[in-house]
């Protein structure tokens, strides 16, 4: 329509979005003179067609959909790592199942979401427990259905992420493994249409500035920041704080992001941990036949330019 | 010998909303009587049959069959509908066999009966046709055949021969009298043909145009069996026909009381 905003931001209602809710709710974007609009989606995969159809410009994702979208031909690039989770994704087992270690998973029914990071996690976990995939029963369930299936005693354990995994723990589920304990990694990232990122540098820079400021504020006055998301999720600030704490979130600074620990040093994204992680996930997806062929290069999944520009302007 | 009373109507009235269709109609019907109803279009003949059939309840008054009030339709009172009301999904033969198959009569026997009835109503060879493949008069005859096959104690026939040609009509009338002689069932016959009424009935009721009362009743004292004995040009027959014609033309409401008081037994 005629009145379309210059920056159309997609976000996920099914995930915890503390910074975004604060930046929007407290008017940070507006103060920065950003002409923006927010577009809610139930989950990451739903944002992909919207990006492809140029209905939105940037979006918040777990790294999985960005990898599948990129591999399946959507011209998108990750330009900012919002967070790296170490305990966001967890394997929780019911006490009655008798599962205490990864090796105990043998012969059990485990709920995972096929082709998602949790599927990747469980395969890593099985390998570490010395098990083959055939030795357990993996039950494909959407994250939202996992608490119900667990409650109805349809599964012995489940590997999934917040907020659903917490429902299992609330019911007495026992934590068996996490991203960190498996030495795996998983991220929340901002990705945008490559075409947009190249043509609308101003908007992207304003966005990065606001984001930087909001993340700072979270450290300084957590309750002030968290109140917005608490309201949306209808939880008390304390509950939200507890949730955020369970996720064990690491938010790398913009400077840190342009190192090999994250998006790679300028001009060398292929050496960054993120691209390496993407390549590994890509191989995994290929083995599952969720992507037909690997892209020529995974480096194209990352666009370092916005951060390079930002750091140049804000040394 | 007077036939035993089978149907008794005492001050039967029927109204649709505000309009009175039948107004305190009373009569008695002996078993194995043949009674015809004559009357102007819209005077309530079909409505009266509906009440006797048990499709509707009188708004007031009593209507007794065999001494008990009529509350629902039943196989002892079968109806030939003015509208046909054939089962569109059944062939002529299946329509005729309907009552038999409801009673669980064996297939071979059913077949015998329907074969016979089809011949009787002049539809030999048309047993396999569906209602929509038949002409108006053929449909009507299936409706008649359906009731004949059911062998009810009382047949309620609503203008059953209205859509058939003179020859077929006369043949059907004679068949009906033969069936009546054989089964001694009671027949209430609605028609617009005075000749038909006189030919078939031992009593003829004439309904009045408005108010739905009985205008007059006539005893028919012609020799039986009529189907071969009586010439339709018999002077007594012609005289009665003329009398009824004139009564109806006059539409004299004065006759009403007489009719109500009238009782054959």
């Amino acid at each position, binding site marked *: 329509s005629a009145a379309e905003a210059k920056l159309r931001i997609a976000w996920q209602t099914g995930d915890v979005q503390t910074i975004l809710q604060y930046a929007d709710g407290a008017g940070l974007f507006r103060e920065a003179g950003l002409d923006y609009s927010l577009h809610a*989606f139930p989950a990451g995969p739903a944002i992909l*067609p919207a990006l492809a*159809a140029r209905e939105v410009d940037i979006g918040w994702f777990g790294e999985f959909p960005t990898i599948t979208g990129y591999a399946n031909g959507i011209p998108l690039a990750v330009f900012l790592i919002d967070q790296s989770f170490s305990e966001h994704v967890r394997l929780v087992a019911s006490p009655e199942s008798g599962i205490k270690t990864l090796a105990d998973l043998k012969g059990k029914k485990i709920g995972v979401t096929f082709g998602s990071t949790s599927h990747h996690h469980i395969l890593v976990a099985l390998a570490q427990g010395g098990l083959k995939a055939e030795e357990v029963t993996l039950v494909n369930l959407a994250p*939202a259905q996992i608490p119900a299936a667990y409650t109805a005693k349809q599964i012995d354990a489940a590997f999934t992420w917040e907020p*659903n995994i917490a429902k299992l723990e609330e019911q007495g589920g026992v934590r068996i493994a996490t991203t960190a304990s498996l030495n795996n990694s998983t991220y929340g990232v901002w990705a945008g249409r490559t075409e947009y990122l190249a043509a609308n540098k101003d908007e992207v820079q304003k966005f990065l500035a606001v984001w930087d400021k909001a993340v700072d504020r979270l450290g300084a006055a957590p309750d002030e920041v968290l109140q917005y998301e608490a*309201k949306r999720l*209808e939880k008390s600030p304390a509950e939200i704080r507890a949730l955020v704490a369970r996720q064990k979130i690491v938010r790398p600074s913009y400077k840190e992001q342009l190192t090999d620990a994250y998006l790679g040093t300028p001009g060398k994204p292929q050496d960054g941990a993120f691209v390496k992680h993407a390549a590994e996930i890509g191989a995994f997806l290929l083995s599952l036949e969720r992507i037909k062929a690997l892209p020529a290069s995974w480096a194209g999944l990352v666009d370092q330019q916005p951060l390079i520009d930002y750091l140049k302007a804000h040394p | 010998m007077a036939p035993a009373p089978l149907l008794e109507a005492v001050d039967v009235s029927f109204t649709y909303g505000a309009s009175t269709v039948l107004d305190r109609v009373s009569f008695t019907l002996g078993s194995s009587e043949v009674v015809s109803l004559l009357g102007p279009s819209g005077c309530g003949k079909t409505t009266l049959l509906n009440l006797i059939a048990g499709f509707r309840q009188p708004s007031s008054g009593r209507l007794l069959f065999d001494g008990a009030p009529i509350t629902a339709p039943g196989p002892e009172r079968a109806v030939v509908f003015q509208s046909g009301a054939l089962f569109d999904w059944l062939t002529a033969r299946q329509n005729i066999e309907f009552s038999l198959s409801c009673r669980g009569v064996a297939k071979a026997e059913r077949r015998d009966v329907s074969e016979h009835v089809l011949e009787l109503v002049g539809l030999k060879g048309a047993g396999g046709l569906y209602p929509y493949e038949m002409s108006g008069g053929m449909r009507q005859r299936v409706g008649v055949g359906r009731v004949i096959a059911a062998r009810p104690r009382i047949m309620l026939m609503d203008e059953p021969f209205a859509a058939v040609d003179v020859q077929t009509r006369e043949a059907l009338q004679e068949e009906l009298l033969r069936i009546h002689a054989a089964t001694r069932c009671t027949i209430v016959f609605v028609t617009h043909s005075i000749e038909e009424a006189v030919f078939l009935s031992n009593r003829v009721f004439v309904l009045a145009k408005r108010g739905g009362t009985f205008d007059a009743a006539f005893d028919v004292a012609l020799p039986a069996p009529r189907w071969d004995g009586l010439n339709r040009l018999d002077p007594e027959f012609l005289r009665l026909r003329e009398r009824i014609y004139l009564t109806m033309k006059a539409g004299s409401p004065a006759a009403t009381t007489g009719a109500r008081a009238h009782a054959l037994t």
Partner: protein
Amino acid sequence: MPSPRSHLALVLASPLMLLLAWDGATRFSLVEQILLPAPATIGAALWDVLTRGYAGVSVFVHIGTSLWRVLTAFLLAAFVGVSLGLLRGLYPRIDAVCLVPFELIRPIPPLAFIPLFILWFGIGEVSKVLIIFYYAMLVVMLNTQAGVASCPEDKIRAARSLGASPWQVFWRVVFPASLPHVVVGLRVALAAALSILVASELLGGDRGLGFVISDASTFFKTADVFVGIVLIGLIGLIADRALTFTARRIVHWEGKT
């Protein structure tokens, strides 16, 4: 026929009995609350949603948004579905042309269209209304066409020999004759329109009763899922009764011929 009074009593008694049975079952712990929240729990959640909104938005905004989508789609579906159905019923050529495309589309799950509709029609209202529209329209069309088939040929013939133009035959004879079928089509389509509200509101956005239900189930808030269910159910019940009531007055001749 029961009297209108005893009829109403039965109509009201049956849901009450179910409610009591449900309440009893939860009260005497025949089922766990987590499997089936007690009516009181759902009532409390309903009250909470009614007074405080859901996800920071007033419930009336959710209801209004959804109603707007459903009504727009339904009215469009009724108009297009009836017109196409009449045309297909009357003109074998039009029917032949429409047959394969529409019959191919009819069984396709609306959920399958979600990514495609986002690609084609975006994430705004157009997509959301369209996905309800196509589904409801096909139902109305099918029923209307069946209504045309049920129209006695003699009535069409009568109209034509009385000088009715094809257009007049269409609207003055075939349409009223097929009304009994059209009404069923509209009733099925109305409920169908509501029943794909959740799918429709998966097309992006954070407003509407469909969003409430899917959001609540994402966060495993079973009581809130029930709140959404109850609200959609009630809207559907009321709409259906209104439709049936109107239809009975219009199609007064049914079954009497």
